[in-house]
């Protein structure tokens, strides 16, 4: 991408300084991850005798097994595996449904504008800025009325409702840059509302679908607020379980198990980040700068 030649008149010292600062900061950002990793492979005694950044005396996977299968999260002691699946059962439908709805909404708002659609879009944008604390209480009441309190379905519903503002924003901003003439040409060719969407717009939407899915996946997987308020004992997502595990005050603190559990909770989003980082960053900047 960039030429490797040192640029115009930069003195060597300045460059070394820049590289030094950048490398130091990279270490600072990496350190917590490193600490988590080494701690998760240490034994309890190793933690007490070693230091934060020392390598394990002996690499053991006991705490990973404990975190996954036997650690106590509040009342039960079955590890976090069940909650990991709870999260998956919640994330997959919520991401797919909200992306699907957002795509259609964005298509309508950008290409089939009608009286009031722009006003509605502004109203919706405001929804992106709303602190969710404002809707927690009424939503709890509504979920109760619908019989969805403490269920995964209820959580999916909540995530779809408050995720659609973002997915709509993403697709709208993408489609607004697709020339209107493309739609006009398709109309003259005889294509209708759905044909234009399936045959013309959807095939060129791959990047924004990736961005939206990754954004939704990350924010729903990482959500804690809705999870802690609306889930029941057997529908808790992994973030809630992790917090319960870490803040369970019974017995000695097992930091190695905490770290293993934290890494497990972080793995899916980290994986997505390292595989599709380009789309992740684009989503972050698009979702926030334009929002």
């Amino acid at each position: 991408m960039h030429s490797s030649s040192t640029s115009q008149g930069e003195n060597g010292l300045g460059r070394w300084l820049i590289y030094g600062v950048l490398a130091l900061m990279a270490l600072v950002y990496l350190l917590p991850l490193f600490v988590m990793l080494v701690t998760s492979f240490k034994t309890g005694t190793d933690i007490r005798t070693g230091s934060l950044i020392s390598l394990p005396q002996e690499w053991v996977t006991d705490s990973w097994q404990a975190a996954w299968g036997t650690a106590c999260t509040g009342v039960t002691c079955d590890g976090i595996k069940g909650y990991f699946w709870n999260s998956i059962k919640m994330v997959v439908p919520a991401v797919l449904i909200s992306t699907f709805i957002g795509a259609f909404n964005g298509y309508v708002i950008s290409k089939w504008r009608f009286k009031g659609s722009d006003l509605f879009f502004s109203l919706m944008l405001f929804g992106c800025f709303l602190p969710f604390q404002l809707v927690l209480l009424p939503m709890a009441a509504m979920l109760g009325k619908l019989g969805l309190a403490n269920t995964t379905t209820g959580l999916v519903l909540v995530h779809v409702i408050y995720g659609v503002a973002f997915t709509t924003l993403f697709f709208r901003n993408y489609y607004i840059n697709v020339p209107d003439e493309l739609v006009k040409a398709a109309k003259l060719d005889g294509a209708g509302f759905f044909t234009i969407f399936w045959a013309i717009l959807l095939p060129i939407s791959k990047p924004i679908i990736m961005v939206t899915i990754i954004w939704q996946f990350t924010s729903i997987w990482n959500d804690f607020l809705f999870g802690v308020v609306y889930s029941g004992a057997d529908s808790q997502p992994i973030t809630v379980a992790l917090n319960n595990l870490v803040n369970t005050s019974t017995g000695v603190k097992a930091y190695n198990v905490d770290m293993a559990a934290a890494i497990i909770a972080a793995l899916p989003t980290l994986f997505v980040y390292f595989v599709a980082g380009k789309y992740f960053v684009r989503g972050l900047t698009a979702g926030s700068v334009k929002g």
Partner: protein
Amino acid sequence: MPVTHTNTPAPLASTTPWQDKMQVWLPKLILSPTIVVTLICVYGFVIWTGLLSFTKSRFLPQFDFVGWRQYERLLNNDRWITACENLLIFGGLFIAICLLIGVLLAIFLDQKIQQEGMIRTIYLYPMALSFIVTGTAWKWILNPGLGLENLVHQMGFTDFKFDWLVNSDMAVYTLVIAAVWQSSGFVMALFLAGLRGIDSSIINAAQIDGASKPRIYWSIILPCLRPVFFSAIIILSHLAIKSFDLVTALTSGGPGYSSDLPALFMYSHSFTRGQMGLGAASAIMMLAGILAILVPYLYSELRGKRNA
């Protein structure tokens, strides 16, 4: 003029007026569920929360109106006052440090660094983590017994004391550390994108005018990034105001309620302490806080767009 069209034109797919009517209604039909849900679940719910804040609801919503009493209780509540003060400290430091680190790293990274892609990936990965994970990790690192303090002791500085996590005067600053670690890379990415968007001919012109590099950054490039500063401030203050997961995982608002934040206050009063009316009032105060930042921003944004 010669006519070369010999065969008959392709017949039109027969459509009834009913289908044409449908084409007009379809877009509205598609959007209407979202409209209804947004009106109810965003605007309706905010109004509902507003109403609740004027009632004496405790464990269940009930509509005995008590006027401004919940707000009076809120303003006389030490824990709420602490939470608001903490938000000012936490939010102010969090935003300032993130901006500083973000701008500096972005400028440094924009100097044709060879490993830019890799470094950027490292700076940004914390953003992919849940605040609960971040909180868990930093809770261990900042742990006074075995964490950072112990590490420095082992390096020979046995007088070193670092107990912020359990020190009620300092606990709120641990939130700042963890939050900055998680979000500053993102601010860097925002500024880097902004820097890349600046027309390089402006910089060339300044160089021809004889301006030094720091001078170019200070008096030309940074002013050009004004909009990025504004969006970054908006995003960060939004993050700060609704910050709930980090404080839950890292300090649980403790020791005592010394590191409480409004979002945590709202949650615990509404859902665990049976003070629904008070919780609703605190939520409305949070909305007021967001609006105080957002409305002037949106106003200037919209005005700018109209003039453009």
